[in-house]
């Protein structure tokens, strides 16, 4: 304990900047590269799944059900005899669709609410934030569960359910940004030279406010996919020809003792995606908001 502490003191006190630099270079940099590669692979499989998948994802090899991973079936086959590797590749598309569209809706709805509340302040702020707080008292997946049940099962409704439940988070972050930025000197300066309120919002505040939103959105991608998986587990998912990862994992969980590969690979795909997106999100945060990472 003592030794270690001494050592860290030696490194840190005199050469603060260099230590920062090495921090970034060693673990973070490598992991960011790995994460980017993972995301790239996922993106490619979502866009051009048939380039990578050895089989059509819907073909059922009924003579080869629950076959363990082998050269022929990299990730084995599921209980329909479908190739799990091909399913994971093809499933990336809907998983990304769920994640990206839920986040987009969340940002597009939550962002402006938060921005207006923060920028205008006063009664608007009070009303908007009260609504947001009300939404927040019903925790994420529960709200999604209720909405999914209310709207009925379909991919769009699942996306909506997840999106609505993520709106409060975005609104809150955006509002916080607004409040802190509008007090900054350069905003006051442009106001004093007679720039209109809308212009200030558009040209000075928004560009400075979007970075934490971006970070949050990145991480939100991951949690949207996790929420989707949770809904599948609770029986409110959608049955599609090509299931998304959450649905695959949820189907495979009952086969863990007889065919571990069925749940494990889609599960790892989710985990790898969320992991990668979080690493990238962290790095984005560092890059976009150097202040935060260096400490105030």
């Amino acid at each position, binding site marked *: 304990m003592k030794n270690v*502490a001494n050592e860290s003191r030696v490194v840190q006190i005199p050469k603060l900047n260099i230590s920062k630099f090495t921090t970034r270079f060693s673990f973070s940099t490598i992991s960011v590269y790995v994460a980017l590669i993972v995301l790239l692979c996922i993106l490619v499989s979502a866009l051009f799944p048939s380039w990578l998948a050895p089989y059509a994802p819907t073909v059922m090899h009924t003579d080869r059900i629950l076959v363990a991973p082998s050269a022929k079936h990299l990730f084995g086959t599921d209980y329909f005899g479908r190739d799990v590797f091909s399913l994971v590749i093809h499933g990336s598309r809907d998983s990304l669709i769920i994640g990206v569209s839920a986040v987009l809706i969340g940002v597009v709805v939550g962002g402006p609410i938060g921005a207006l509340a923060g920028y205008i302040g006063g009664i608007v702020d009070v009303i908007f934030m009260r609504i947001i707080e*009300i939404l927040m*008292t019903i925790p994420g*997946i*529960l709200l999604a569960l*209720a909405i999914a*049940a209310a709207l009925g099962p379909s991919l769009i409704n699942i996306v909506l359910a997840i999106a609505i439940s993520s709106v409060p988070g975005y609104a809150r972050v955006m509002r916080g940004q607004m409040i802190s930025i509008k007090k900054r000197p350069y905003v006051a300066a442009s106001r004093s030279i007679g720039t209109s309120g809308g212009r200030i919002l558009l040209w000075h505040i928004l560009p400075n406010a979007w970075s934490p939103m971006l970070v949050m959105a990145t991480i939100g991608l991951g949690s949207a996919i996790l929420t989707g998986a949770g809904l599948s587990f609770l029986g409110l998912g959608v049955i599609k020809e090509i299931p998304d990862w959450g649905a695959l994992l949820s189907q495979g969980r009952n086969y863990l003792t007889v065919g571990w590969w069925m749940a494990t690979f889609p599960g790892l795909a989710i985990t790898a995606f969320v992991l990668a997106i979080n690493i990238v999100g962290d790095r984005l945060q560092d890059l976009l908001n150097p202040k935060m990472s260096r400490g105030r």
Partner: protein
Amino acid sequence: MAVLSRALMRFSSALISILGSLVLVFFIIYMMPGDPVLSMVDPSTTSPEAIDNLRKELGLDRPFYVQFFEYFTSMLQGDFGQSLVTSEPVLPKILMHLPATLMLTLTSIIFAIVIGVTLGVLSAIYRNRWIDVLVRMIGLFGISMPTFWSGILLILIFSVHLNWLPIMGSDGWATLVLPSIALGFVGAGLILRMVRTSMVEVMDEQFILTLRAKGLSERIVMFRHALRNALIPAITIIGMYIGDLLAGTVVIETVFSRQGIGRVIADAILTKDMPVIQGVIFFIAIVYVTVNLLVDISYSLIDPRIRRAR
């Protein structure tokens, strides 16, 4: 004085939030397709009149606002209505299941804090060493795995294979271990990241450097000063995370066959048992709001600067 009025403010806004969530949920349920009455009768043998009568009897034929007003006034008198499925009163039902869920939530938070803070501190101290890398990977796994998956894996490993811990049920401490790990793992990952980041920041700050320069032992510097400051963001996370935890019980209680309001509400949503959904959400909202009030108060206790700043 200022503290008191601030607390009052927070309290009243909390009340409004809870009331608002009641209206919101009532509305969502009202919007749900399908008729709860249909799930209560045998469709092939019940006459249309009987169904209409049942609907009237349950007051489901009236407009939204009338139904809500009625519900609200009787709720104020402590009457949360009856389950449409089992016709048992809702309040006792919730009060029976709430303790198990609160217990699980509590142990999960404790697990998340203990693991999250410990690993976060370790990670910050051994910054960039293999321990740090390992710890951060563990943390990232925590927030990247669907809980039902990690839960089932824990069951297969520790209950079925090793037979160390109970596989199901909610009586006794032993049954809490695996569910708390599965549920708290996510929180541990979040807290770990927060603690690490803020520890690292604090460690580089001027006052720590000063303390070090003064010759204070490293241990005192770390734990009394650095950690204390690093805890603040961790507490914020808990306030935000409590909602996820409560919602997470929906999944975890099913996986581990535990009692609790998570399972109650999941069932109720599938059967459109309005009074039950309504009641459970109400209590979850209360817990959420209360915890966040406590978080707010604890800020000012831990860090006097915040009290002044606001």
